[in-house]
Structures are given as C-alpha cells and as structure tokens.
C-alpha cells in the first residue's frame, strides 16, 4: 500500500508518451546532424543499392543466388567503368587538362569574349550599346568575383578529396546493402509484432513503390539529359562536351536551378570559345530544346510527370541542404524533400480513406448484384 502510494505521488514525474517520442526524435535528429557525413554516405550507398535492386531481382527471378548475382553485377559495373574509362579517359583527361591550363586566365578570356560579343551586337544594333557596362567597371567586377572564388578553392579541393573517398566507399557499402538487405529485412519482419505485419508491410510497400519509381525515374532522366546534352554540344563543336553533359545530367536532379546551372555553364564555355552571338544562341536553343524534350518526353516516361515541389519549398530545401551538407546536400535536398512530401501525402490519403468520421466517404454508386451466374 505504501509503495503504491509513493508510486502514485511520483507518477507526475514520468512524462507522457508524446513527450518521450518528441525527445527521442529530437535526440535522433541531433545524432544524425552530428554524424551527418557518415549518414550521407550511408544514404547515398542505400540509394545506389536501391537503384540496382531491380536488376538483382530480375536475375533472382531466374532462380540465381542473390550473392552470386550481386557479385557478378558489381564485377560487371567495375568492368564497364574500366572499359568505359579506357575509351573515355584520354578524351576526358584532355578536357580536364585543357580546362586546368586555361583556368588561371579564365577571367581575362571571359572579359575578352564579353567585349567581342558586345562589339558585335553594338555594331549591328547601336541602340544596344547604352545597356552595356563600361569595360573598366566590368573588368573590376569580374576580377573581384574571381578573387572571391579563388578564396573558396581550398575548401572545394577538400570537398573534392571527400568526393573521391566517397566514390570508393559508396559502392563498397552499397554492395553489402544489396547482398544482405533481404536477409536483414527478413529478420526484421520475423521480429515485428505479428498482428501489425500485414498493414505495416502494405504501407511500406506503397512507400517503396513511390520512392523507387521516383529515384529510378530521376536517374533515368539525368542519364538521358546528360547524354543528349553531350551529343548536342559535340555536334555544335563546343569544348568539353563530356564534362558539360555530365554536369547537365547531374544538375537535372535539382528542378529549375539544374537546367540553369547546366545551360549556363555551356553558354559560358561557348562564349569564351566562339566570342560570337550565333554559337551562343545555338547553345541556348539546344538547352531550350532539351528542356522541352525533358518536360514532354523524358519526365512523363521516366518520373511519371508528377507534380514538382512548390518553388518556395524548393528554394528552402536547397538552402537548408547546402547549409547542412554542402554541394551534395544541395543536390540531394530536392529529391529527399520530394520523397518526404509524397510519402506524407500517401499517409494522409490513407488516413482520409480509412477514417470516415473525419472525411466522409462519397457513395461510389456501385451496385453489388444479389448473385452472380
């Protein structure tokens, strides 16, 4: 009796479950933030495993052992990278070497190119001259801009080293995710309360379908755009078509800003290379055509033409992603927030469909026959 009385007196010290949940979530968020680099590495590895899983499943449907499939797949990818590198490396390294050599004089060359284009436009349309900046002011501004960028180079080099390390670790981790993922899931399912398994796995399957469809669509979209941009730039005779194509493809995962980054880089290269309006216009037309191709053909086929994020949410997610995880954070922020938004919408719709007291169901008008012959 005495113990129970003391217990009831101390009961107010125990917080309600909702507070415990909030504290636990806050603790988890803090842990994720502290170890964000490692979490990011795991996230990217899991994403790669997720993208490769359908290939493994196709082989599994032919009753081939998962271990063997995953090992052969990674050997094949390794061979493809080595083979592709063998053919592409000389060209790519030549592009990088040329770019590195010409980088210190980049500001001067850009200034010369802008000057040449201004002269060309000014000669044809004298009225346009009043919109152009004087050469001195432009030169000062360009110099100030490049001096500022030069200060960021050590940080960029540090990020580059981290990216090279990540490019080794991500395939390494994803190999184990892909190989052991099914057994881990199986052992988790066996420990999950039996009574809730049917509904919980059903929700998880729907989430998995949405996330898988979106990620694979995004990867396909990036690949299609990257290849199209590289081929288009090569046909136009623009320098560094492979680098610019790769940049355009990778940037396409960020809606609105991606095409500006990809197209802007190509226009910049074309400006310095040709110092004339016509080739720049061709590059702009190429990127506009790619954008139309993306909207009307690639997106509907790959991603399914579903709605993108609200522009304000998009900008906010890029800023937060960039602040938390740097360049990679900016790239993955939009897909991550889109996935969260879609999963949230799915859970909301499920709740709405299963809670007639909150959202009354409309009568579908379907008549169930009294018997079927």
């Amino acid at each position: 009796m005495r113990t129970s009385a003391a217990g009831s007196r101390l009961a107010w010290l125990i917080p309600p479950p909702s507070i415990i949940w909030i504290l636990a979530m806050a603790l988890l968020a803090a842990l994720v933030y502290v170890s964000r680099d490692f979490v990011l590495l795991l996230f990217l590895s899991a994403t790669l495993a997720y993208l490769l899983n359908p290939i493994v499943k196709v082989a599994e449907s032919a009753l081939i052992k998962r271990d063997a499939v995953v090992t052969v797949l990674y050997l094949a990818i390794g061979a493809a990278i080595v083979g592709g590198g063998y053919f592409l490396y000389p060209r790519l390294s030549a592009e990088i070497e040329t770019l590195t050599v010409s980088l210190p004089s980049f500001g001067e060359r850009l200034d010369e190119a802008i000057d040449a284009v201004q002269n060309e436009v000014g000669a044809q349309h004298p009225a346009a001259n009043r919109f152009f900046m004087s050469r001195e002011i432009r030169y000062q501004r360009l110099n100030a801009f490049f001096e500022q960028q030069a200060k960021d180079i050590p940080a960029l080099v540090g990020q580059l080293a981290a990216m090279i390390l990540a490019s080794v670790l991500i395939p390494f981790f994803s190999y184990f995710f892909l190989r052991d993922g099914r057994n881990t899931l199986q052992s988790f399912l066996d420990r999950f309360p039996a009574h809730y398994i049917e509904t919980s796995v059903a929700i998880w399957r729907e989430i998995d379908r949405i996330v898988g469809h979106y990620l694979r669509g995004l990867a396909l979209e990036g690949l299609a755009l990257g290849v199209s941009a590289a081929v288009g730039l090569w046909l136009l005779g623009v320098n560094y078509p492979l680098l610019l194509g790769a940049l355009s493809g990778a940037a396409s995962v960020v809606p609105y800003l991606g095409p500006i980054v990809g197209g802007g880089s190509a226009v910049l290269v074309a400006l310095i290379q040709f110092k004339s309006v016509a080739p720049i216009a061709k590059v702009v037309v190429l990127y506009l055509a790619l954008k139309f191709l993306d909207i009307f053909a690639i997106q509907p086929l790959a991603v399914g033409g579903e709605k993108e994020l609200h522009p304000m949410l998009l900008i906010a997610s890029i800023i937060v992603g960039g602040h938390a995880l740097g360049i990679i954070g900016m790239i993955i922020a939009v897909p991550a927030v889109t996935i969260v938004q879609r999963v949230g919408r799915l859970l909301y719709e499920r709740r709405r469909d299963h809670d007639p007291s909150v959202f009354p169901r409309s009568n579908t008008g379907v008549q169930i026959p009294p018997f079927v012959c």
Partner: protein
Amino acid sequence: MDPRQLYRVQLLAKVPLFSGLSQRQLGKLLIKLFERNYQAGETIFVQGEAGKALFIVLSGQVSIFRNNDETEEHFATLSAGSYFGELALIDDEPRFASARADEPTGLLMLYKSDFDDLIEGHKAIAIKVMNNLLRTLAGYIRRAQSHASNRNTLVTGVISAKTKAG
C-alpha cells in the same frame, strides 16, 4: 540455381491459384512475395481488419476461424501449398474470418500493390492468376447458391407439408 528459391517455385506450382504459370513466370511472381515466420498460436490476421495480402502456406499449419459472440467457428485447417486471404487481391474490405498459426509456420505474402505491379508489368501472369481467382470465386458462388437452393427447397417442402397437414 538457388535451392531455397527452387523449393518455393516448386511449391507455388502446386498452388491452384498459380496453376498454368511456367517456371519463369513463377520466378517473376516469387520475387514479389514477402516471407514471414510465425510462432505457434500467433495471430496472422483478425476478422474485421482490412485485407492487404494473399497468404500462401510455405510450411506448418494455419487455422481459419470466426468468432461469433463467445464461440469460435472453425472453417478450415490449411497446410503447405494452401492459400487464404485471396479477396485482398481484389479490394481491401474487412476480412470475414481470422487466421492463426497452429504450429511454427512459414507464410509467403503477395500484397495487392505488388499484384497491381504485376498487372501493369507482367500482364500474362496477372491474367492467369486473375482467371484462377475468378474460377475460385465462381466455385464459392455456385456452392453458396446450391446451399441456398437446398435450404429453400427444404423450407418450401416443410411449408407445403405443413399446409397439407393443416
């Protein structure tokens, strides 16, 4: 060849719902299935809950029953190769009965969302499964009609006997 997967494909081949599917098609179906092991006495689903998946008995034994007030009405005991909960592939209406593992049991689950994927991606498989499912449902309906008809005949007979007697 993976012996574990081969065993599952051979078992699926014996399930009436998947009859007519080739080994290749069964392999494609198998990768859509989830596996879950149940302890003896564990509940698989409860009557009145929304159905989400079809269950196939891989090993062990399952009881299908319905609780009516205080009593438990037993419908069937299922062993390896049997299936239950097939209506979940059509809609997510509440289950009519409950299912419980009588002994340590392994089950394969086909979720409606995965079956919908099959309808989109592998029409030939989905059409065969749908065809088998329709046959099963037609069997249920015929049995129910025959049962109702017998009862009506019996009731009519009793009424006419009573009328004659009266």
